[in-house]
Each structure stands twice: as structure tokens, then as C-alpha cells.
């Protein structure tokens, strides 16, 4: 057995002793159960600032019978003890009190939660990118998104904040008139490339809305003219802007990703359900055999 193993206190001394002889003395004194404190006083003066618990033991009643106290037990390396249980969502896996069935069901719940979160996130992404007519797009159209770009171009507190007072509406109108690709380019230019896809979409819908309103007004004029001339035939223009055509490659990719996540959930359900069924069947066979 090595000295370090025989003497746990000496092994904890990370401070180098004055020389090897002193180290030997310290080892010898602790081996003898504290019968003599020769050499320890020197060691204690060295380690006292670093290990007060050790110094206390040494500086107390002259021959200290035991240097190790309950207070010092917590300072051990922990080797040979059970490792602390894993905290968090997956702690149940190392819980010995749970049955395998219980662990399986909890596993399923944990994975389902993870997949559910992932699916929700994907759907939110999809809504943000393609959800024309949704509340998010409406709020963006109504100033949130354009306001972000405008705010990036003319930041608050800047010199333009004072001189462009009251021009926000006019600048917003100018921003809308830029159209999808140009709006996306502007978003990239002012350091907001993350807004570029939304700018592209919003710009498209704004352009379509503008085109539609122009067509509608033209159609109304035509209708009025035709009514006046009593021909009876009127041309009907679309009154609402048509939604953006679904089916772009990126949109299809997003849908496929959502589909993949749903299929993954179904597969997991099937897997766990089959596992539990086979375990139940095995148990039933054992019970039948006992009967």
C-alpha cells in the first residue's frame, strides 16, 4: 500500500512540504495515530491558510487523536460512492425504483414533448414565412415589419429622429411602394437580412393589393360607364387580393419537414406501443404457465 493510500490526510495536502524529511515526519505522525505532533506544527503553519479545517484539528488539544472529522468527509474524491442521480427530463432513466414499463412510458412522454416542441416551432416558422392573411403578417403589414426596416434605416436617437418628425407615414408609404425584391434588398442593405424573406412576401402581397385596387377602380369606372350606356354587360374584377400561390420549392420543403416530424411521432408511438404489447404478452404467457 502506498503512503498516499495509507494516509488520506497527507494525500490531500496539495501544498508542498519543506522537504522530503518533513513529509516523512508528517506521514509517520499520522501513522502513529497522533502520538506525537512533531513536524505537524510546521506543516500546519504552511497549510493553515489553505486548509483551516486541518489547522483547527492540529492547533487544538495538543495530541489530536484523529485528524479526519465528519466536516472533512465531504472533501473526499467521492470514489467508490454512487454518483449523484441525473437531474432533468431524463433523470427517470437512472431511477432504480421505476419499472421498465414506467421508464418506457416516461421516455415516450419526454420524446413526445421534444418532438411536439420541434413541430410547434416548425409550424410557427411556416406561419411566419407563408402565412399570408394570418395575424402575424397583418401585424407586420400594419407597421411592425416595415417599422423594423424603417427603424433600422433611421434609428431612434439619431440625427434623423429630430428632422424627420412627422414623416414616418410618408416614408412608410415610400417603403411600401418599393415592392418585394427591392424591399428585401433594402432590408439586407441596412443589416436586416433575416427580414428579407418576409420583405419579399409582404412586398409581393402589397404589390398585388395595389394592382388589385387599381384594377378594381378601373373596373368600377368601366361598370359605371357601361351602366350609363345601358348595355347591361359588366366586367367583374376581383375584389380581394388573391393569396400567394402555394407550392414554391421552399414552401414544399417546409411542409415536408413538418410531415417528417409528424411521421416521426407516429413511428415512436408505434414502436413503444409494440414494445409494451410484447412485454404484456410475455407476462401473460408466464402467468398462463403458472396457472
Amino acid at each position: 500500500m502506498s503512503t498516499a493510500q495509507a494516509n488520506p490526510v497527507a494525500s490531500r495536502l496539495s501544498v508542498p512540504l519543506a522537504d522530503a524529511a518533513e513529509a516523512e515526519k508528517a506521514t509517520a505522525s499520522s501513522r502513529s495515530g497522533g502520538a506525537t505532533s512533531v513536524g505537524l506544527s510546521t506543516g500546519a503553519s504552511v497549510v493553515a491558510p489553505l486548509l483551516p479545517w486541518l489547522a483547527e484539528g492540529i492547533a487544538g488539544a495538543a495530541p489530536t487523536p484523529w485528524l479526519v472529522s465528519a466536516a472533512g468527509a465531504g472533501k473526499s474524491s467521492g470514489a467508490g460512492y454512487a454518483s449523484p442521480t441525473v437531474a432533468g427530463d431524463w433523470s427517470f432513466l437512472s431511477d432504480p425504483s421505476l419499472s421498465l414499463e414506467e421508464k418506457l412510458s416516461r421516455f415516450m412522454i419526454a420524446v413526445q414533448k421534444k418532438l411536439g416542441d420541434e413541430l410547434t416551432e416548425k409550424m410557427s416558422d411556416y406561419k411566419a414565412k407563408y402565412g399570408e392573411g394570418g395575424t402575424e403578417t397583418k401585424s407586420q403589414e400594419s407597421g411592425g415589419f416595415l417599422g423594423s426596416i424603417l427603424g433600422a434605416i433611421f434609428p431612434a436617437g439619431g440625427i434623423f429622429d429630430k428632422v424627420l418628425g412627422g414623416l414616418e407615414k410618408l416614408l412608410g408609404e415610400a417603403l411600401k411602394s418599393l415592392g418585394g425584391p427591392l424591399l428585401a434588398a433594402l432590408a439586407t442593405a441596412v443589416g436586416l437580412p433575416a427580414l428579407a424573406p418576409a420583405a419579399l412576401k409582404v412586398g409581393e402581397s402589397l404589390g398585388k393589393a395595389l394592382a388589385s385596387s387599381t384594377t378594381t377602380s378601373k373596373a368600377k369606372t368601366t361598370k359605371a360607364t357601361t351602366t350609363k350606356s345601358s348595355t347591361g354587360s359588366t366586367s367583374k374584377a376581383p375584389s380581394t387580393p388573391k393569396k400567394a400561390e402555394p407550392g414554391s420549392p421552399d414552401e414544399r420543403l417546409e411542409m415536408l419537414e413538418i410531415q417528417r416530424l409528424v411521421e416521426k411521432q407516429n413511428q415512436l408511438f408505434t414502436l413503444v406501443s409494440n414494445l409494451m404489447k410484447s412485454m404484456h404478452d410475455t407476462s401473460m404467457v408466464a402467468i398462463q404457465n403458472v396457472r
Partner: protein
Amino acid sequence: MIPTIDDLTAGRTLAELQGFTAEMGAAVASLAAQQAGSGDLELARGILEGLVVTNPRDALAWAMLSQVERRRGEPFTALLCAEAAVRLAPGDRQARLVRAEAILAVPADAGAGGEGRREVARAELGGLLPGEDDVARRAGALLRALGP
């Protein structure tokens, strides 16, 4: 190659994806300048819009688009484009001159800061005076036109 949403959000430009070089961009810009000089503002605008969509980080294209929009009578669009140009090239004297011109083009009675805008433009032009280049000459001419 068409940019994907990931490309757009990562800030990759169409020019990068399609191998559109700076020389090609400069050639397109000079074509637009030629058209604008000959008075065909709509064509120049179309060319420059295509250029900024291809490479939104081209400050020169934004500055030229700002000039064209100003001459088309769209001061607010011109201001947006000029600000984009200055944002991309803060130290570029041409971009700053274009922005000062765009500020001056905003009608004085629009909004509350009419006089303040003139002062901002004046300060901006004053900062461009040192030098013997076209920018300095143009800035000096504008300052003289603005008066004391």
C-alpha cells in the same frame, strides 16, 4: 441559381450565388448612368433596381438609384435609398453627397423638421468641402445655393 430563404436570411446575395462580379456590376451601373443621363429615368430605374436586388450591398447602386428616384420626383424613396447607400459605405463622400441632396429634396412643408433638415444637409455638405474633387465642387455649389 435561385437564392433560398436560408440564403436570404444569411445575407448571401444573388450576385454571389450566380457569380456576378463587381466588374459586371460596374458595367451595368454605367449603362444605367448613361440612360439616366439621356433622360430615360424609367429605364435607368429598372436597371438600378435590378442591380440592387442582385447585390443589395452595392452602395454605388443605391446612391445612383437615390439620384434617379429624386429626379423622378420621389423624395422619400430617394431618401431611403440614399440612407441605404450611406449605411453600406459610411465613409464614401459620394454617398454622403447623395444623401444630402435627398434630404434637401424633401419638401420643406413635409413634417415638422423642415428647417432642421436644411441644417443637417448644410452640415453634411460642409463636411464634404475639403478636397478638389467633383464631390467637393458640387457640395460647394449647393452650399452657395442654400445661402448663409
